């Protein structure tokens, strides 16, 4: 009974959406804001990656909101799961090949993730992608060397430090110029590593914050479930 009503409802929704989708042509330029950001992007922000300059400089306040949502989710998960603890069974160690492989791969993955968020304004990448890769390195450690846990104090300290640096850089912009997140460092030449003002600083802070946050989420979920 429920399935029939659902299929009827979804077919009405499908007909409605496809009638309106037929009016949107695929592959035509639709807005004018994008061309303005592409034309004036390099001389106003100094970053060569236009998506990075939109995320951090033109729409930097939305990124601050997103970082706040991620922080609230990680804190809420830690608070909910603190009460539901299960008994800890004996942990059997992994095989020798897996242990050695994980120990060899862990620093290489960390270096790769750091490369991606440091060069966020020059190549495709940025803080969120690099942070996710660093969190995957910590998941690999949980898989291979099962007795180790990351110390919770260091993970929360790194996460708070990343958020505080983001807000402090914005407030310095407010004090120096007129508005929050003003680009107050010199823009330099494009295509160099030390260019684009405050964009590398903000992306390094976001990379540390997202990496330690996602690793903390996995740590809270795994805790005492083995």
């Amino acid at each position, binding site marked *: 009974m429920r399935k029939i009503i659902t299929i009827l409802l979804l077919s009405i929704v499908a007909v409605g959406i496809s009638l309106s989708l037929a009016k949107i042509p695929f592959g035509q330029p639709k807005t004018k804001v994008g061309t303005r950001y592409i034309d004036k992007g390099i001389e106003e922000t100094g970053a060569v*990656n236009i*998506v*990075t300059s939109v995320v951090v400089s033109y729409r930097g306040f939305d990124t601050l909101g997103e970082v706040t949502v991620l922080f609230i989710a990680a804190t809420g998960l830690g608070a909910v799961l603190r009460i539901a603890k*299960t008994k800890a069974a004996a942990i059997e160690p992994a095989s020798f090949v897996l242990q050695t492989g994980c120990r060899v791969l862990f620093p290489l993955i960390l270096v790769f993730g750091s490369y*991606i968020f440091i060069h966020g304004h020059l190549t*495709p*990448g*940025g803080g*969120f*992608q690099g942070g*996710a*890769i660093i*969190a*995957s390195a910590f*998941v690999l450690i949980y898989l291979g060397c099962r007795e180790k846990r990351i110390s919770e104090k260091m993970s929360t300290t790194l996460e708070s430090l990343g958020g505080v640096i983001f807000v402090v850089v914005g407030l310095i912009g407010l004090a120096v110029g007129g508005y929050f997140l003003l680009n107050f460092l010199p823009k330099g030449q494009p295509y160099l590593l030390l260019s684009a003002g405050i964009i590398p600083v903000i992306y390094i802070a976001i990379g540390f914050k997202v990496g330690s946050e*996602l690793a903390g*989420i*996995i740590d809270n*979920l*795994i805790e005492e*479930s083995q």
Partner: protein
Amino acid sequence: MVSVLVFLMLLGAVAACVFRDLISAVIAAALVSLIASILFYFLQAPDVAMAEAAIGAALTTAIFIVAIRRTDRYEQ
């Protein structure tokens, strides 16, 4: 080329609906995320493709498998 990938993606989504073993359903959802990441590359969006592959295909699957381990594995 694109039509074949879209057909495989929809097949994976239907498989995630039909399977009763929850771990198989999660692997089908990871397949959907992976093919979506390839389609993002065809739409000339390398930043979004990297984010979807790292976050959607890898971390979401890991979080799901750890959560399924703490509850039941088969859907009643």
